[in-house]
Each structure stands twice: as structure tokens, then as C-alpha cells.
């Protein structure tokens, strides 16, 4: 066998070994698991308008290329630990989360919501009950809104889960509150959902 062929074979084996070590070896998590961009965690205060009684912060998420977005949450809400592409908040009577979700290429967002995500919610939540489902538009993007109730520790919660179609992934805003507070919080939830924008 030609010496140069043997040399190429040896180089290939070394390269494959290096690739395996780089991908699965110690310290591989840093380059394969998406990390939070520090600028995503710096909210910018939004000037409160006279019509709105709640002061809000705008969060500009810059974690995933092609999936940059901006969303506004009330300043009083407590931000929790979050993973790349998402924010979690807690407030007096509930919690909120915004995240990006992968929709498979062979599915549409609506099909994904009805055939994959809702069944998952049904099986994971206690006493899941759909209240409503509607198609809507959020800043020019197709969106699907699922409202449901469930119980947790004997407390009834009502959740508004909105899926917003995006250029690559879908944006998912989940806003949960004590069922008794849901009517009062509806305008706040609505303003959060309508503040969501995909950015370039």
C-alpha cells in the first residue's frame, strides 16, 4: 500500500479520535449546549405610557441566531434562573415563562400544538382542562393561543399559552395565574403577549 495513503489513513484516525474527544469528552458541554448571552439578561426600562399603569422592562434575547426577540414584562415581576432563549418570572399569584421551541420541519405550528404539545400538557398536569383555543396574530406573526386550567397543590390555575410562529423556532409565552385572578390579570397578560417581537 502506498505510504501516502497510509499517512492519510493515520491522519484521519487521529482526526476522528480528536472529534470524538472534542464532542463527548470532558469540557464538551461548552460548545454543544447553547449558552445564555449576557446581553440577553440586561433589561432596558421602557418609558411608562399614561395609558398603562404598569412599568415594564424590555428583554432583548440574543441567545440563538435567527431567533432574536424582544418581550416586555412588568418590572415588579421577579426574574428567575433561565436557560438559553428563555425567561422565567414569578409574581404574587402566578408565574410566567417565555421560551423558543423547535417545531419539526415536517409539521406546522398548529399541528405541533394540537398533536404534540397539548397531549404532553394533558399527561403532565393534574386535572388539565382546555378552556379555549384560538388562532390570532401577534405583531404580524401567526399565533395560536391555548387557554387551560389545571390544579396544583389543590389550587386551581388558569394558563394562557401562546405559540408565535417565527423564522426558525416558535416563541412560546406561558402565563399562569391563580384562577380567581385570571380576569384581573388578563390585560397584563395581553400586553405581554402583544409586546413579543422577532428581531433581526
Amino acid at each position: 500500500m502506498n505510504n501516502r495513503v497510509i499517512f492519510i489513513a493515520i491522519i484521519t484516525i487521529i482526526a476522528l479520535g480528536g472529534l470524538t474527544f472534542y464532542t463527548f469528552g470532558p469540557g464538551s458541554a461548552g460548545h454543544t449546549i447553547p449558552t445564555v448571552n449576557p446581553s440577553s439578561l440586561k433589561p432596558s426600562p421602557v418609558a411608562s405610557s399614561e395609558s398603562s399603569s404598569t412599568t415594564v422592562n424590555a428583554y432583548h434575547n440574543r441567545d440563538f441566531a435567527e431567533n432574536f426577540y424582544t418581550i416586555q414584562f412588568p418590572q415588579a415581576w421577579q426574574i428567575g434562573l433561565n436557560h438559553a432563549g428563555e425567561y422565567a418570572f414569578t409574581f404574587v399569584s402566578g408565574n410566567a415563562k417565555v421560551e423558543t421551541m423547535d417545531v419539526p420541519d415536517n409539521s406546522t405550528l398548529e399541528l405541533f400544538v394540537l398533536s404534540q404539545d397539548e397531549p404532553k400538557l394533558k399527561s403532565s398536569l393534574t386535572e388539565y382542562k382546555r378552556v379555549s383555543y384560538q388562532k390570532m396574530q401577534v405583531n404580524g406573526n401567526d399565533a395560536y393561543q391555548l387557554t387551560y386550567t389545571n390544579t396544583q397543590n389543590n389550587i386551581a390555575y388558569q394558563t394562557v399559552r401562546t405559540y408565535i410562529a417565527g423564522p426558525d423556532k416558535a416563541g412560546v409565552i406561558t402565563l399562569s395565574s391563580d384562577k380567581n385572578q385570571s380576569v384581573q390579570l388578563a390585560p397584563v397578560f395581553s400586553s405581554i403577549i402583544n409586546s413579543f417581537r422577532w428581531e433581526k
Partner: protein
Amino acid sequence: MRQIFLFVSLAIVGFGLYLKFFYDVPDAQITINFFVGWFLIIVGVSSLLMNIVWSTSRKNKDE
């Protein structure tokens, strides 16, 4: 025989490049996609090189 080997090598490189740059990777498969994409590119390119080097050296021998 050489043409078949060349075609298979090109197909391997092509599929590796497709996985790397065009395939919409689900979040849960990022690591495996990274590995398989690069694996195919490395194996495909090296087999192309081997093919070229080997056939060149055989031509030289024949002459």
C-alpha cells in the same frame, strides 16, 4: 471501481455538509448532529484524498 469509490466519497462529503449547514437540527440532537456531520466530512474528504493519491501513484507505476 475507482469511479464508484469516488462517487461514494462525494456522497459522504455531500451528506456531511448537508447535516452541517442545511439540516434543521432539533435542540435535543445538537451534539449528535455536530459529531455525525464532521465525522462524514472527515471520512469523505480523506477517502477522496486516498483515491486521488492512490490512483496517481498507480499511474506513475504503470508509466
